[in-house]
């Protein structure tokens, strides 16, 4: 191993000075963001090349709290690759707390629930959507007929968008109960 390490040494030493020069060169182009005209030169095309070529920016809204901060999501080939700063949003002015700054991580969290599951005899079992929904609907239908619609309780969410919340209320109404609520009361 030692010999390999020695071999690796030679090109490294040679590259050092080269890298240093490269660093100085890029340094001057970097301060464009800070608007110091006359101090910096314009960045060349190569320097400001997008690290995510072909990505699009989507304006959306943070889901953490009721302030309603803006988020710009950079999406490349259907993958959310980077969360950008919405500096021009009139409420947040680009600001985020830790929750907002981490929205992208919520979406791509590894511990998300990945498929429908049911607990049967104390064990988690994987289901397809069709089977799961059939079974749920079946139970709800039976309860509607036997115990009456008020045997069901619907708990919606303040994380839903308006349309979903509205339709959730409609769903409860059409199921036939007023047993519906969400976090406004908490």
């Amino acid at each position, binding site marked *: 191993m030692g010999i390999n390490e020695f071999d690796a040494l030679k090109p*490294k030493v040679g590259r050092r000075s080269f890298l240093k020069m490269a660093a100085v060169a890029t340094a001057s182009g*970097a301060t464009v*963001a800070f608007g*110091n005209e006359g*101090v910096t030169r314009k960045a060349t095309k190569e320097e400001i*090349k997008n690290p995510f070529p072909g990505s699009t920016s989507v304006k959306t809204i943070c889901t953490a709290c009721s302030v309603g901060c803006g988020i710009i999501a950079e999406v490349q080939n259907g993958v959310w690759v*980077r969360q950008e*700063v919405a*500096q021009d949003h009139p409420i947040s002015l680009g600001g985020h707390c830790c929750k*907002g700054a981490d929205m992208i991580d919520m979406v791509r969290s590894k511990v998300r629930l990945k498929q429908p599951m049911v607990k049967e005899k104390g064990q988690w079992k994987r289901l397809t959507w069709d089977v799961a929904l059939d079974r749920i609907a079946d139970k709800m239908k039976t309860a509607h007929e036997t115990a009456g619609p008020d045997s069901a309780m619907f708990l919606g969410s303040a994380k839903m968008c308006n349309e979903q919340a509205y339709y959730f209320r409609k769903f409860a109404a059409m199921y036939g109960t007023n047993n519906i609520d969400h976090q406004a009361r908490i």
Partner: protein
Amino acid sequence: MGEFARLNFYCDEHRCINCDGCSVACAEAHELPEYISRRKVITMNEGIENMEYSLSIACMHCTDAPCQQVCPVDCFYIRADGIVLHDKDKCIGCAYCLYACPFGAPQFPLDGAFGTKGVMDKCTMCAGGPEETNSHEERELYGQNRISEGKVPVCAAMCSTKALLVGDSAKISDIYRERILSKGHGAKTQPYGWDVAYGKKL
């Protein structure tokens, strides 16, 4: 060409509310491991009336960076615009920079065999490292290079209360002074710690 602007960080302690937005934004943007915190928020005198202050701390990109002075392998370099960067290919993980740094900026991953420290990692002011700009290697080692894209470092951009400022030191000084004077905090004209980090003797 005139003199280069020196880029600095400054955290307005009257505004910082310890929301950790900067530190999480940083960790998230550069996809750091959990135990590396390039930027962190600290609170002093917690719970004591009129004494509690919070501050966001990371590498302050000092003019006469002590880390650069003590580094045995000379892996640090200071760009013309004042950003202190280091070369992870050279770093041997001796942690001397940590001992020298007044701000606790250098971080070490504890992932080597037998608990050895890996190479140092610290705030790059979102300016990457010596690898080719915006290359895959640079991103892997140092995270995003937002400066080269013409973007503001992510921590300051995402600061929820605009407490964390970044930019030319003269400009930051102006912003801060304006805030202080309009609130009537008194005739404090120089931000605290300025002389320590940026070597301006008052």
